[in-house]
């Protein structure tokens, strides 16, 4: 099929911080001795990402996501392990490597606060040594796509957050990077701006750019990512196409049930009650591997007499929340 452009093998990152006590006595003590604390941020993770992919990199805060991302962008050295991206080892051939990638950090701006984005673009043209005609062509195309023509000449400080974030994307992609890393790119944005940016990412992806995306916004993930890597406690707990995510805990459906008779004593194998609005109206989770849908319908109608009902997929949030909470899922 397609070739993998990112290969990570047994990546490990351990660092040392210092413990500081909270009591007065501890803080006096810490003036003289500090207790080193070893933190294993990333524990032997391995994965591959194919060219042309949009890969969502998920995990709770402190799971090791940003450490991994920093290693992949050449900012940090790993403790040990191999990384090969576009044929480079990021931290060893940093300058050659970063010329071919781009990055957008939702919380760290590459724009310059008091001057227009156009000037920041110009500075980056010089830094990446982009030929003038290619720069003009790329800029025009992206300005068009993101609809930021009017704001380019205004000082950054007067722009809205959405406008600024669009310009961040332009900065990151002016030099035609093959891979673009996005670190929480839609944080704090309104719905319209989010949609515009997602559309842009899809468009650029169709033209061949590979995206690696970390985010806490699952709408980003659902609308963009095809591959999902879930990381928790420094370990990968899920690495598959997004379709498989909802089936991670088996084949389950969410059922909303309204009946004539009371549901209070209603119990079936494979059925879990989630919440109940009143005696005759409740939500359930049904495990289809234990109780097929057809059998459930027949029994429920017979016992309770169904008035109305709806069947939904388990929402991705619930799956991810469950995954974050498990320490180590059984395979």
């Amino acid at each position: 099929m397609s070739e993998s452009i990112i290969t990570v093998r047994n990546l490990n990152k351990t660092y040392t911080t210092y413990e500081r006590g909270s009591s007065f006595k501890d803080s006096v003590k810490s003036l003289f001795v500090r207790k080193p604390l070893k933190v294993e941020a990333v524990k032997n993770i391995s994965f591959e990402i194919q060219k042309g992919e949009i890969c969502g990199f998920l995990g709770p805060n402190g799971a090791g996501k940003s450490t991994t991302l920093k290693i992949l962008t050449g900012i940090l050295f790993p403790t040990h392990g191999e990384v090969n991206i576009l044929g480079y080892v990021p931290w060893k051939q940093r300058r050659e490597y970063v010329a071919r990638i781009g990055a957008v950090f939702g919380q760290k701006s590459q724009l310059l606060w008091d001057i227009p984005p156009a000037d920041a673009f110009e500075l980056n043209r010089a830094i990446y040594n982009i030929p003038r005609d290619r720069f003009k062509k790329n800029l025009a195309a992206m300005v068009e796509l993101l609809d930021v023509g009017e704001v380019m000449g205004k000082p950054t400080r007067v722009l809205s957050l959405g406008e600024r974030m669009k310009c961040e994307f332009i900065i990151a992609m002016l030099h035609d990077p093959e891979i673009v890393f996005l670190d929480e790119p839609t944080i704090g944005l309104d719905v319209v701006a989010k949609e515009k940016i997602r559309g842009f990412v899809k468009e650029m992806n169709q033209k061949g750019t590979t995206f690696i995306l970390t985010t806490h916004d699952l709408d980003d993930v659902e609308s963009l990512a095809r591959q999902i890597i879930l990381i928790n406690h420094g370990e990968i707990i899920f690495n598959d196409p997004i379709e498989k995510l909802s089936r991670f805990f088996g084949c389950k459906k969410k059922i909303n049930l309204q009946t004539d008779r009371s549901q209070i004593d209603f119990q079936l194998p494979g059925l879990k009650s989630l919440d109940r609005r009143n005696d005759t109206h409740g939500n359930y989770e049904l495990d289809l591997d234990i109780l097929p849908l057809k059998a459930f319908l027949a029994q429920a109608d017979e016992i309770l007499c169904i008035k109305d009902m709806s069947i939904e997929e388990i929402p991705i949030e619930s799956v991810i929340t469950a995954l974050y909470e498990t320490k180590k899922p059984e395979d």
Partner: protein
Amino acid sequence: MIKSAFAVYIQGIKTAIASRMAYRTDYFIGITVMLIWEMVVPMVVFLIYRSGVAFPNWNIYEVLLIQGIFMIAKGISYPCFFGIVWNTIVRVQEGTFDLLLIKPRSALFMALVTGFDAEDLGKLLGGGVLTGICLANLPPANLAQWLNMFIYFILGQGVMFSFAVIMAGTGIKWVGNFRLYEIFDSVTAFGIYPQSIFAKPIRIIISYIIPIAMIGAFPASILLGKPVPQLGWVSLGVAGFLTLSLFYWRRMLASYTSAGG
């Protein structure tokens, strides 16, 4: 490669000046405050001489010439490259130092490009005026003296650069420590007075090892026809200091990229 680096640097200066001009009043207040601050030491020298005492064999204009040239040296180096110090400290503290590492240039060069500080041009102005006043009250120097002083002055800029690199490197590890400038101010205080007032070991250190005398004291001494150490030895000292500073920066950068968090 050098041409492209120069183009980046020019672009960096343009953006820095444009940013600064966004707050013009603030800019001029800043320059004024800085000039007042820079005039404190010359004022102290003036008050000392006024009370009827002097540094042996140095008249007041000769002493102030050192301080004028030192101020010019700062007026050039502070805007052009000393900004790497605050730029690095601020960026490491805010976490935006990472943004310099995702650019296809050396981190030190990126810190330089994004660290131009237009406000410090005020020092150049102040130093120029002070030097002018002193020169007008001193016997004129000949062309050879001027050329010689120019060579020493350029080497002095090398010392300033090395100092900036060491401070910026320290700023990588020592997060948020703006007091580093105090170290610079205290150590360079040895370089703004006649060298003859210092004890021999101190003079050797500030001539050859941490050659801060190169910044103002030696160039001024040359114009005044006073003896200075030979060019060969002092340039060796400057080269050593520069090499050491770049080595130190590399060490500190490596420790940044291998830290975690």
